[in-house]
């Protein structure tokens, strides 16, 4: 075999070809012949190297230099400089722009990435990248080495549970759907990730769409379905586009369509885009929306596994659940089950937000404590403040406190503590957060998103919100807490779907753990965290005030008076508590009192 001292790899993908990649190859060959280097240097054609946005592109080995943006006229110069004189031509060298990913950084301590393993690592719009990362090998293994029952057994023994939040064992759901004697059957992927602050699924759909598609195909084989829908929310246009590209490529490669991989198994998929309704994340509402109806839930049973979309058995799982499946099939159930607690296995993705040093997307093994997540993975509380509460499970979840920090991440443990696993939103709050205000904020959200079909949720959430607003406004009365508790229990017990059943959780959990804050609002007309405007007042500390007048000049309602170089005064009657004076004061002379 000939030995070359150097190899030049020229990208010949369609984009670079359009920019003259073949001409560059010819020019390089000609120049190497002219310079007598043709026996020393080999020119090869290759696929995509970089982004191709500034093609043509080439890589030169052994140096590993990435050149781009040259024309055939530049080739003689480049050959002389680089290959004769050994000098790298900076002019054509690709400047590597530092990629700042504000969502998903490098692996953090204690993180284990299973679902997110490919995100940011592969090109989501190129199926070959996924194939190179063992993509669709699990599908091959399932189709050729496993019966559908064996696939279900594998998922059952892996311990994978629904990552949408409820935690129903995925394998068990598949088994139920398989057993129902009715055809056709459908696979549904719930990609209607609506919880505020939760964007784990968006990232998977945008970064590794094929893992979800492969999981759905394997699921389709297991339950005996031949068609699937991915219901994605309209707020995620990039995810929709990425999914459509991925589905098209999967069809071209024979992973979707008839006779998949030459077997007699047929399966195809389509993306259904929502039109903006939070309640469509509820499975029966989601299926109504797929069928072109208003996204209103229907009573269960019958469960979707028995009677779902078009009245047929439909297996509904969430994005993260499906995304776990290929790796479980490939690496085996024991590997997956080796992570986690007795009843909660594997890993879970979270979008950590709020007052932490390092917010963003994380994936941690089940069983890890909340303390480890907040203080080690997310870097602790920002600005040296004290931890107060963590809200898990989104608007239907609850607030947990200091005493729960050592709880293991486990479906049952979180539920027992008065919250839930949820889909993966994690909002961390420091001592400056008012828990009554937080409860009001979440209730404002669920109240607006109630679809209005059932009375407990439609009217109840509104009444709860009114009570909370009254307390935040300083108009709370004796008995309001008891009224609130009663109402919450009624709404939770009588609502039709998960939205109404879960809506009171933020209120009940804050009432349980922060009852004294409610009491302070009602009986002492005081907001301990100094958040609720009607209950706070801004005061100028006379000794610190220099009388610079900046606060008086910035006050929008002229509530501040005082002579230049004399301590100023805020008139509490006129003040609207906007806080501008405190922001503009250069001497920290303004304090909030409650």
């Amino acid at each position, binding site marked *: 075999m000939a030995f070359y001292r150097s190899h030049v790899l020229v990208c010949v993908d369609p984009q670079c070809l359009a920019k003259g990649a073949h001409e560059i190859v010819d020019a390089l060959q000609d120049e190497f012949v002219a310079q007598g280097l043709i026996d020393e240097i080999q020119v090869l054609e290759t696929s995509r190297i970089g982004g191709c946005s500034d093609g043509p592109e080439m890589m030169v080995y052994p140096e590993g230099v990435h050149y781009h943006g040259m024309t055939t006229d530049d080739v003689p110069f480049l050959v002389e400089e680089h290959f004769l004189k050994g000098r790298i031509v900076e002019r054509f060298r690709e400047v590597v722009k530092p990629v700042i990913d*504000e*969502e998903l950084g490098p692996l953090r301590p204690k993180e284990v990435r299973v679902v997110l393993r490919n995100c940011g690592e592969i090109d989501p719009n190129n199926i070959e990248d996924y194939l190179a990362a063992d993509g669709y090998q699990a599908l091959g293994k399932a189709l050729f080495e496993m019966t559908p029952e064996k696939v279900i057994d594998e998922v059952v023994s892996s311990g994978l549970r629904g990552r949408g939040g409820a935690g129903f064992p995925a394998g068990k759901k598949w088994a139920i759907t398989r057993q129902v004697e009715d055809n056709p059957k459908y696979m549904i992927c719930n990609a209607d*990730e*609506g*919880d*505020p*602050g*939760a*964007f784990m699924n*968006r990232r998977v759909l945008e970064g590794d769409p094929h893992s979800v598609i492969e999981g759905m195909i394997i699921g389709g084989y297991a339950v005996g379905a031949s068609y699937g829908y991915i219901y994605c929310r*309209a*707020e*995620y*246009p990039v995810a929709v586009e990425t999914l459509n590209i991925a589905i098209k490529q999967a069809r071209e490669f024979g992973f979707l369509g008839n006779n998949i991989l030459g077997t007699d198994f047929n399966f195809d998929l389509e993306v*259904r*885009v*929502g*039109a*903006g*309704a*939070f309640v469509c994340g509820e499975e029966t509402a989601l299926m109504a*929306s*797929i*069928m*072109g*109806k*208003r*996204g209103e839930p229907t009573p269960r049973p019958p469960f979707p596994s028995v009677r779902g979309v078009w009245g047929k058995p439909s297996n509904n799982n969430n994005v993260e659940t499906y995304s776990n499946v290929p790796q479980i099939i490939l690496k085996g159930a024991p590997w997956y089950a080796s992570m986690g607690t007795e009843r909660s296995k594997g890993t879970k993705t979270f*979008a950590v*937000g*709020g*007052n932490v040093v390092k*917010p*963003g*997307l994380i994936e941690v093994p089940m069983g890890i404590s909340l303390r480890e997540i907040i203080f080690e993975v997310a870097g602790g509380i920002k600005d040296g403040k004290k931890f107060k509460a963590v809200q898990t499970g989104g608007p239907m979840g609850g607030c947990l406190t200091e005493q729960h920090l050592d709880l293991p991440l486990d479906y049952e443990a979180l539920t027992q503590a008065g919250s839930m696993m949820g889909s993966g939103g994690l*909002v961390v709050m420091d001592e400056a957060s008012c828990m009554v205000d937080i409860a009001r*904020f*979440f209730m404002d*959200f669920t109240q607006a*998103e109630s*679809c209005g079909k059932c009375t407990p949720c439609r009217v109840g959430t509104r009444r709860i919100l009114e009570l909370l607003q009254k307390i935040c406004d300083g108009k709370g009365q004796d008995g309001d807490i008891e009224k609130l508790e009663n109402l919450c229990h009624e709404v939770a017990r009588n609502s039709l779907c998960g939205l109404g059943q879960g809506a009171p959780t933020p209120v009940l959990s804050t009432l349980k753990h922060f009852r004294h804050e409610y009491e302070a609002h009602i009986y002492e007309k005081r907001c301990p965290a100094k958040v609720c405007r009607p209950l706070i007042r801004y005061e100028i500390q006379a000794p610190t005030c220099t009388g610079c007048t900046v606060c008086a000049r910035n006050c929008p309602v002229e509530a501040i008076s005082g002579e230049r170089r004399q301590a100023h005064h805020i008139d509490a009657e006129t003040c609207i508590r906007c806080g501008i004076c405190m922001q503009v004061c250069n001497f920290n002379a303004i304090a909030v009192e409650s």
Partner: protein
Amino acid sequence: MTVQTIDHDVVSVVQAAIEKHGKNRDAMIPVLSEINRVFGYVPREAIQEVRKQLHDPARQVHIAESQLYSLTSFYDMLSTKPRGRHVIKFCENAPCHVVGGKAIWDGLREKLSLENGETTPDNKWTLVTTSCLGLCSVGPVLLIDDDMYGNVTPEQISEILEHYE
């Protein structure tokens, strides 16, 4: 009240949407979304036209105008009222709220003299709040038409709005 006639534009837009998404009942939401994208809202005439083109008892497809209207009023992204040339969608959810979203919202309302859901008299701007866009790591976030702006500060509002004609 002025009587509006169904102009050619509505007919052809509806036809194109139906050709793209099919003639079955489950095509109604995609079809209405398409119409909303073209006109900025779903005009009454378009609803009549969709019904005319889709309702077909022979194929067991029964569609009433009221059903189409109920869909349009249910989903946030579909509008029954005309909107401005540019729609500003502001994320009002907790993660954006805690990083200064309120100041942006107040700034937008003040700058445009609009409340949630309103349109400026010159039909240039409509201001609405939106559900979480999942861009929480760069909050506060706002969306103007299809352009996303993250890490927005109150000072940037005027500059951002100037990009639009």
